[in-house]
């Protein structure tokens, strides 16, 4: 553990009732979610605008079907509204919490669809390469998305392959091992090392 100093911020006073979003802090999402947790619908509009892009993006990426993705994005955003009072800041960032809900919901949907069709055949049929073509539509957060995409470059090709199959492809680690024809332990290691690299690239305070 190296020597770490608290950063000393400039002392700024927020005005009573000031719109936090107007002051463009780096992460207004936590504050919005805190207000949403108290039933503030206007804050929810702000929250929607702040997270709908990544939410819809990841849902679309996993489901690959625009109509279904819209449906799931709506479910996710309503779920965020419902569950906001249960958000626990000690467990992670507000945006991370929202995106965890979104990804989980998309993966659940893709797996139940898989279960209802020919599951085994389906895994083989879904080409591994499909996880790599980037679907980018009108991207509101284009700059940030671009920065983040560049930060994915810290992954080795092998790590990236496994991490993207898992996260964007919605496959379990067992399925990833099956698709790539590598041992399960190797997949676990690549997923873990990949996320560690991404995490370290982001820094402690994300």
């Amino acid at each position, binding site marked *: 553990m190296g020597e770490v100093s608290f950063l000393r911020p400039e002392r700024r006073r927020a005005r009573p009732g000031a719109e936090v979003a107007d002051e463009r802090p780096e992460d207004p999402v936590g504050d919005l979610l805190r207000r949403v947790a108290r039933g503030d619908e206007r804050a929810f509009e702000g929250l*929607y605008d702040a997270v709908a892009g990544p939410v819809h993006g*990841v849902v679309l990426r996993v489901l690959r079907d625009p109509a279904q993705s819209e449906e799931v994005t709506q479910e996710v955003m309503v779920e965020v509204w419902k569950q906001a009072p249960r958000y626990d800041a000690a467990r992670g960032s507000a945006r*991370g919490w929202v995106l965890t809900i979104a990804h989980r919901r998309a993966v659940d949907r893709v797996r139940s669809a898989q279960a209802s069709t020919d599951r085994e055949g389906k895994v083989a049929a879904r080409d591994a390469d499909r996880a790599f073509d980037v679907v980018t539509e009108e991207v509101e957060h284009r700059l940030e998305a671009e920065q983040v*995409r560049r930060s994915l470059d810290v992954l080795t090709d092998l790590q990236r392959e496994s991490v993207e199959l898992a996260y964007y492809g919605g496959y*379990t680690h067992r399925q990833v091992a099956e698709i790539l024809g590598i041992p399960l332990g190797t997949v676990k290691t690549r997923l873990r090392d990949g996320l560690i690299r991404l995490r370290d690239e982001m820094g402690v305070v994300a």
Partner: protein
Amino acid sequence: MAATDHRTGDRDDVRDLLAAHALDAVDDVERARVERLLREDPEAAAESAGYAEAASRMAVAVAATPPPRLRASVLAEVSRTQQVAPAPPTRREAAADRRGGRGAVRLLAAACGVLLAGCVGLGAVVLGQDDGSPSLVAAGGFADGTAALLEVDGDYVVLGQGVAAPPAGRVYQLWSLGDDGVPVPEGFLEPEDGGFVGQLDDWRDGAVLAITEEPAGGSEQPTSDILATVAT
């Protein structure tokens, strides 16, 4: 793996799944096992939180604006949808209450837990007003997580989230450094689930707060490097 070490081995197996779990790349049974581990093991929970943040960046990388009609549709549904009740107080808050001996600390922990989410990555957010609501003095990285110092009506509260627990047999100890530079012990930080909250009683305004890692029970003088400092 030795049969005699079955339980540890099992735990290690589950721990190996933390990254896969953060990517939702586990099946339902594995997910349940991981989530049980996360409830029981603060270190695993902290590790998992880091993975989840990393994973969420992958969502940002593919952000795609949904059709405008979806916004109206979501807002309409939200306006007729009831929210769930807040969770009961967590163990952490209850523990803070016992330690601090003041209900105010528990309330602050709740308020600041939320506040801190806004602080992460900012280093500078001030929600403070002049009427007793907390204002942020400083925030920054500490032990793999984030720590912040807040001021409430002249009292100081230090809190953190996502903080790695000190190694077994060690504690985080707080010190105040006055003008004479002599460290005065000010109690301990005890992360639970990566979070901590502590009130600094009778704080000398202008003193520097320092944190070191000490043997359990604490020391009279710092015996390790200073891990963090903040001026008040």
